[in-house]
């Protein structure tokens, strides 16, 4: 647990970067600091490992005041991932990752073994061990950055806009990887970003800062979307927050309707649309009413798939809206077709969940699925 109590940072030129911050970062969860530039999010992060010293108030990590500890020693116990990775250009990937263990006095062999293990953890091929950072892509460098931060197995990980310098597709992969890693490691992570979508995707809790170093709202992302504290948060959270909020609502109890399915070589449907499936009942695409038999070239690509076991209302609605037939395809965890879902079913489900707890999203902290709209038919 990391606790900020009345923390203020005033720079020598009089700028107040952080103003009387009270905030508790939960252990084992991802807490995201988000806000426009100059809102004090990075300063707040950097005060945790004393890269910046607070001018007032106290910060404690696991109950211990950070100011009571030697700065360098404190930092060795806290992982740090910096934007653009900040790797040592003169050291190989393996030695970059082994940095903190070596600082802690491990012998070289142990440190390198640990580094090799971490390359595997973050998905780097072993042959990269002997390369230098300049030979890696931005995304690969950032994986090294994450591995380096994890090397000494610190309980706390600070991530300072780590994915801001990579392209959107790589960023999304890195975000998914981080969530997967966090599922295994359960670190206390503080993550800084200016990207609200990234904050909502990654955060168990999100702290929205406003210019002048004030905390505007600190809540679970679902709550941020459904009940922004004020106009600033509302406008910062941005467009479509109602729709995005559906990502935090479970689709449990959503009725799954019938869906006509055919196989390649079957007779064409005589009426409306039919879903074409393979021998395992996995969707291949749609065919419209016609004559003769179903052949491969007649397939119309489908929309996103809705995983009925783990999906959110957003995934269900997107499946319905993106399907050529107007009916979304519901599948089980193995991708086998269960039935169909309509947009009106989703809206009814939304109304039901409103009635049930009066506050949609209040019970669900993180997106129900990370892959909504990722799998496509055909």
């Amino acid at each position: 647990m990391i606790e900020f109590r009345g923390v203020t940072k005033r720079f020598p030129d009089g700028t107040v970067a952080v103003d009387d911050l009270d905030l508790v970062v939960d252990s084992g969860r991802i807490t995201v600091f988000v806000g426009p530039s100059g809102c004090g999010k990075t300063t707040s992060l950097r005060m945790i490992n004393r890269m910046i010293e607070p001018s007032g108030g106290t910060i404690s990590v696991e109950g211990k005041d950070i100011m009571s500890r030697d700065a360098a020693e404190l930092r060795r116990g806290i992982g740090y991932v910096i934007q653009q990775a900040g790797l040592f250009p003169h050291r190989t990937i393996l030695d970059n990752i082994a940095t903190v263990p070596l600082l802690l006095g491990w012998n070289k062999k142990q440190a390198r073994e640990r580094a090799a293990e971490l390359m595997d953890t973050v998905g780097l091929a072993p042959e990269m061990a002997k390369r230098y950072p300049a030979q890696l892509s931005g995304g690969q460098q950032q994986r090294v950055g994450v591995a380096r931060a994890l090397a000494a197995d610190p309980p706390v990980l600070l991530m300072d806009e780590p994915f801001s310098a990579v392209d959107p597709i790589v960023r999304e992969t890195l975000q998914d990887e981080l969530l997967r890693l966090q599922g295994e490691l359960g670190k206390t992570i503080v993550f800084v970003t200016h990207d609200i979508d990234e904050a909502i995707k990654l955060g168990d809790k999100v702290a929205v800062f406003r210019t002048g170093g004030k905390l505007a709202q600190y809540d679970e992302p679902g709550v941020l979307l459904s009940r922004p504290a004020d106009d600033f948060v509302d406008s910062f959270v941005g467009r479509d927050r109602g729709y995005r909020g559906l990502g935090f609502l479970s689709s449990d109890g959503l009725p799954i309707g019938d869906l006509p399915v055919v196989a390649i070589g079957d007779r064409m449907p005589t009426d409306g649309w039919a879903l074409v499936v393979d021998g395992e009942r996995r969707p291949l695409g749609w065919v419209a009413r016609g004559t003769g038999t179903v052949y491969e070239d007649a397939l119309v690509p489908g929309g996103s798939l809705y995983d009925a076991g783990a999906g959110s209302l957003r995934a269900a609605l997107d499946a319905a809206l993106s399907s050529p037939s107007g009916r979304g395809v519901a599948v089980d965890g193995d991708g086998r077709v269960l039935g169909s879902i309509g947009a009106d079913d989703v809206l009814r489900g939304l109304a039901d969940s409103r009635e049930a707890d009066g506050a949609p999203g209040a019970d669900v902290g993180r997106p129900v699925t990370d892959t909504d709209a990722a799998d496509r038919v055909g």
Partner: protein
Amino acid sequence: MNWVLENISFIASLLTDHIVFSLVPVVIGLVIAVPLGWLANRAGFGRAVVVNLAGLLYTIPSLALFVFLPVILGTGILDPINVIVALSVYTVALLVRTVADALEAVPPLVVDAATAMGFTPFRRFVAAELPISVPVILAGVRVAAVSSISLVTVGSVIGFGGLGQMFTDGFQRSITAEVVAGIVLVVVLALVVDGLLLLIGRMLTPWDRTARAVAQGATA
């Protein structure tokens, strides 16, 4: 040519002197310039003072330095220490700015990352900032070494000029071959030392070559 062959052992001893007089100061100068450059790079206002003071040293005419140093150091006018000290001063003058610039060019994100991982400032300097600065510093050392090799010859005025003595001696005794051989040897020595430093630099910084190869591949 005959003159050269007849005096080969004389030339060899001058060459040895020349190497010692020119390169020992480069090493001493570098050892002094690194902490001064570090200091200059750390102190915002001090930087200009240190770098400019160091630069000013280079404007002192070498002959004047050779003559004045015995007075300042209390050494004999014909002490070879004078040459060593004078050339060390010039090396410092050249390298302080180079070291300060090289350290300044280390990416701030790398320095921040090192700090955040728990390097103490000294350890960070030795393990990260200095090695990353090697390519730039080495370029400065090559200039300093060549300049030092050429400046040693001026020392012949006070009797410790290494190969430079072949100029004075050759002029006084009208032996053209001696003068020409001296010039050729100084040039060759400068080229060899420069080449060796380049080679050492490559061996010290395998990462720099790969980085440049990647950069070129990207622009090609």
